[in-house]
């Protein structure tokens, strides 16, 4: 069963820019950055525009040639991954009256030229975490200013 939950980009600590259909995402909370292309970038765009997960599945089915269950599983896993990385957060749910009609359109094979569906990939870069992340502060000096963790010095 696909969710009717909607998500939003977890701003302001998640930054994103799209250029030529590719997306770069920066997470200021964990010091990671990410890139998306092709199916992943399209799904990101749909989520960002407020589409519920069920709508994302539906539109992806319309856009690509693939087994409905495979697409649904891949989209759900991808959304889970985006959530785990705290790049998106739930933003309510909505009624989805039109989905069944759209599904039927896909099933009748209206567009036989659709490209083959490929599992979306979130490319994750962790090489700059040390610029941002800070070990827990264990003590402060006599004026209240934090000291460096002794283990770091």
């Amino acid at each position: 069963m696909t969710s009717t939950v909607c998500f939003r980009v977890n701003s302001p600590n998640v930054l994103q820019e799209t250029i030529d259909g590719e997306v770069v995402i920066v997470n200021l909370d964990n010091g990671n950055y990410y890139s998306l292309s092709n199916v992943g970038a399209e799904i990101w765009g749909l989520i960002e525009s407020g589409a519920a997960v069920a709508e994302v599945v539906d539109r992806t089915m319309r856009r690509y040639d693939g087994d409905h269950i495979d697409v649904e599983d891949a989209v759900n896993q991808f959304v889970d991954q985006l959530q785990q990385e705290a790049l998106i957060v739930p933003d309510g749910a909505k009624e989805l009256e039109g989905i069944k009609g759209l599904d039927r359109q896909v099933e009748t094979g209206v567009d036989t030229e659709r490209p083959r569906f490929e599992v979306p990939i979130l490319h994750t870069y962790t090489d700059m975490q040390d610029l941002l992340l800070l070990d827990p502060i264990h003590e402060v000096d006599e004026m209240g200013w934090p000291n460096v963790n002794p283990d770091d010095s």
Partner: protein
Amino acid sequence: MFIEQVNQPDTSIRGEDTSPLVFFETVYRAFQQAEQVAGGPVERFYNIGGYTIRLRFAGSALVSGITPALEHLAVVSSPTPDLTICICDSISTGINMPPPLWPADVYVARGDIQRYGDGDIKIAFYIGPKILNVLDTKQNLAFYWIRDGCQLPYYESGSPLRIILHWWMREHGRQYVHAGAVGTATGGVLLAGKGGSGKSTTALACLDSPLVYASDDYCLLTNKPVPYVYSLYNSAKLEADDIHRLPHLVPFISNSDRLHEEKALLFLHKHCPDKVVTGFPIQVILLPRVAGRPETTLTPASPIASLKALAPNTIFQLPGAGQAAFQMLAQFVRQVPRYYLELGTNVSQIPDVILGLLSGG
């Protein structure tokens, strides 16, 4: 997530107004006291990014640590600077940095103090060297306060006042970026990439050529009216392991005795003032990467690759940098042609490749 257990300070200010403005005013009063103790202000003026910046030191303790990197931008004094940065240390003046008015669980490595000072008054704190940065964007008045001026880290001497300049310049159409820049008077290249990608080696390899130098790691960028880079610092930093590739620069190293724990730091204006310029239009973005071959070559790079090279390592270093900075950098990489600079082992070829690119060859 950044805190396990802290001992909260018991200060006289607790329980009173803890707004950023109160903190700013407290710091200002403490600075005036420190300035008096130190025998009055020591002032220097610089043209940075097209604006006149006054550095107002409480005594002379920090002058030699802060000013060498800016010397190429020095100008005569002005009664109406665009920004005044008050600079002070606790040890030489005997005046303590005023205590924080926020809890200890709000610090982020890039200096942010989360949920505090997001309005006109910006506040950041570098925990390692204990440097407080405060700016009031309305009054164009800032404070840079380090606990011990003798402990000013070499990287602060190399690129001083980063946070304050980043904050203030972004309000004035200049984006502080982590990038190098070399070129000619009519145009040049921006060198983008994370630390270790070859920005410094590339920039320094160009000193012995017709190319001029604006930066090896930090500079100011604007998109309007045309993409343009402003030099910030005449300093350069090199990994000790890379010095052998540029042996003619060895006499310029300012910290030869500490290379076991510091990068080599060079102040280029002191040794080759004609090579360091204040800025130029940017014609090309170059993404240096080590190719492992003798020759240096160029390969086209996508806008997205350029954005990945330029934006995360800029934004992760600058407190308060967010979507606006990301957007500006995305616009920049869309506007400007881009190439990978496939760095060869023969560094003397690098300037020729860049000159050839700039001349359309």
